[in-house]
């Protein structure tokens, strides 16, 4: 059974961590007090770099390195917090925002101090109205207690936090689309380079960090880089929150040590499959990730182990599908997501997503043909790797992985002229 001592979720569900006193009792603000008194920005960056913390938003880029890219040219710098969580199957930032907003605030102030950011902007997904309200209350309390605002804890350092509420668009979770959105524009990803480190928000040097990444910072500074780096694989260490959903006994957020085998997460944390079912596929890293299968359950949940399986840790959205689930229908649902959320700038993403969705709908409705299967098997060459941002490249990985694994299931939709999982029903969306 699970024995890992939670770090990021310590006290969640037991204490009201939106309260300053309770958060302090839980170990909160120790890092901030220590850092503002005893640490230089450079030493914080060195500590975070040594911890090997990698960004928890999905890309897994080393956080210390990202901070180090900022040019030393005297222009004002921005720290932007990405709280626009919308990756299918992922609900960890939503939980952190609502349950431990002060941990996020502490991580924000520490990070802003480290990179000497003049301004902090938190981009909260528009749908997270309750989370926004909780965060605003926590922000007021932190300001009153002297952890946010001018001359923090008498250090001479000042930092305030502005909150921008999203208005509904998955693509704004892509960092340059997020910057466009904060600037009051359509959330369309920018051509890179220049990268945000050089030309980010309002053209200024900017770092965009994910909620969970920022929540790791206080713990790295309190307990040390060596402690953090010792949890899990050295190149991919730390505690990690995995959002488990789908056909399991106990869906939920579970904080695990990086590198935990997928099978242990499924069995020991999430209670295993529903009675009488067998495992068919797991999407281990959100809607953009390729599936893993029963023989992959020994695979460690970390950036490098999953990459070796041609998939990714991504956002940590772990969606479990058993033998009752139709892979055409699962793929159709995900492709429809990307079709709907495409910003439309790049033709392969905009048109390709619609095309693949129409094919999968036809197959599920019993109107598919062998020609449709041929297109599914070949369209990847022109659809993937031809877009400005990763959204377009996220349309195909899950579909391709299950198409390769279950080709007969896709072919049956043609030969049976319908879905073998539900012959009475012709799948037609509203």
């Amino acid at each position, binding site marked *: 059974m699970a024995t890992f001592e939670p770090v990021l979720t310590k006290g969640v569900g037991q204490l009201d961590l939106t309260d300053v006193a309770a958060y302090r009792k839980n170990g909160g603000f120790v890092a901030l007090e220590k850092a503002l008194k005893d640490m230089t920005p450079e030493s914080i960056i060195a500590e975070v770099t040594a911890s090997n913390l990698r960004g928890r938003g999905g890309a897994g880029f080393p956080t210390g390195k990202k901070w180090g890219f900022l040019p030393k040219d005297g222009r004002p710098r921005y720290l932007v917090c990405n709280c626009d969580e919308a990756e299918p199957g992922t609900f960890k930032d939503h939980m952190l925002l609502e349950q431990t907003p002060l941990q996020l605030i502490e991580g924000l102030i520490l990070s802003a101090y480290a990179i000497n950011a003049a301004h902090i902007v938190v981009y909260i997904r528009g749908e997270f109205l309750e989370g926004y309200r909780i965060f605003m209350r926590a922000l007021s309390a932190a300001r009153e207690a002297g952890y946010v605002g001018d001359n923090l804890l008498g250090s001479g350092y000042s930092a305030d936090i502005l909150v921008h*509420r999203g208005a509904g668009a*998955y693509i704004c979770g892509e960092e340059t689309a997020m910057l466009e959105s904060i600037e*009051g524009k*359509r959330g369309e990803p920018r051509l890179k380079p220049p990268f945000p480190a050089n030309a980010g928000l309002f053209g200024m040097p900017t770092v965009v960090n994910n909620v969970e990444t920022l929540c790791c910072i206080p713990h790295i500074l309190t307990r040390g880089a060596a402690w953090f780096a010792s949890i899990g694989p050295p190149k991919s260490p730390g505690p990690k929150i995995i959002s488990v959903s789908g056909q399991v006994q106990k869906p939920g957020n579970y904080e695990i040590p990086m590198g935990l085998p997928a099978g242990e997460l499924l069995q020991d944390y999430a209670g295993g499959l529903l009675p009488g079912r067998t495992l068919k596929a797991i999407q281990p890293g959100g809607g953009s990730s390729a599936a893993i299968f029963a023989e992959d359950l020994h695979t460690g949940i970390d950036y490098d182990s999953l990459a070796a399986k041609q998939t990714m840790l991504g956002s940590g959205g772990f969606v479990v*599908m058993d033998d009752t689930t139709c892979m055409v229908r699962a793929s159709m649902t995900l492709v429809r997501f990307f079709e709907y959320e495409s910003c439309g700038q790049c033709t392969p993403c905009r048109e390709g997503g619609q095309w693949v969705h129409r094919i999968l709908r036809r197959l599920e409705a019993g109107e598919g043909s062998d020609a449709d299967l041929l297109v599914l098997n070949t369209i990847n060459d022109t659809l993937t790797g031809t877009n400005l941002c990763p959204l377009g490249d996220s349309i195909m990985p899950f579909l391709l992985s299950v198409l390769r694994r279950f080709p007969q299931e896709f072919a049956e939709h043609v030969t049976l002229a319908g879905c073998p999982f539900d012959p009475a029903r012709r799948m037609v969306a*509203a």
Partner: protein
Amino acid sequence: MAEHGDAQAALIPFLQYCQEQDGYVTQQAVSDAAALTGITDGEVESIVSFYSLLFQHPVGKHIIHACRTLSCMLGGADRLHEHIRRRLGVRNGETSADGEFTYQEVECLAACDKAPCLQHNLQFHYNVTPEEFDRLLETWRAQPAGAALPAE
């Protein structure tokens, strides 16, 4: 935000505020926003159309966003959505004949462990069965009118 950049950074908060007052982004709000930020009406409309929580047309005072993405699908969202459409007499994206309820099937709401989930005026409801939906519908009908999507 505008104090940190240019005036356009105030655009989305301004539109959110207007929508809270009027229920949707009216033509007047578009013109006011254009004047405020120094861009054209057309550019404002292009921005409004980009975001799913900004409405270009009147909507009901109850807005139901029902998640349809993978985890909710696995949790029975299709059956729930059919039930909701039948109960409200609408197709996806429509407003009920009495003008009260606007129904929209949406993408992942980040509450996948409590599937299927939906939002009513951005308030979450979890593990919603058709029976639970009927019960919720009664409580919503009894509620006084307020801003459908509070901007704060």
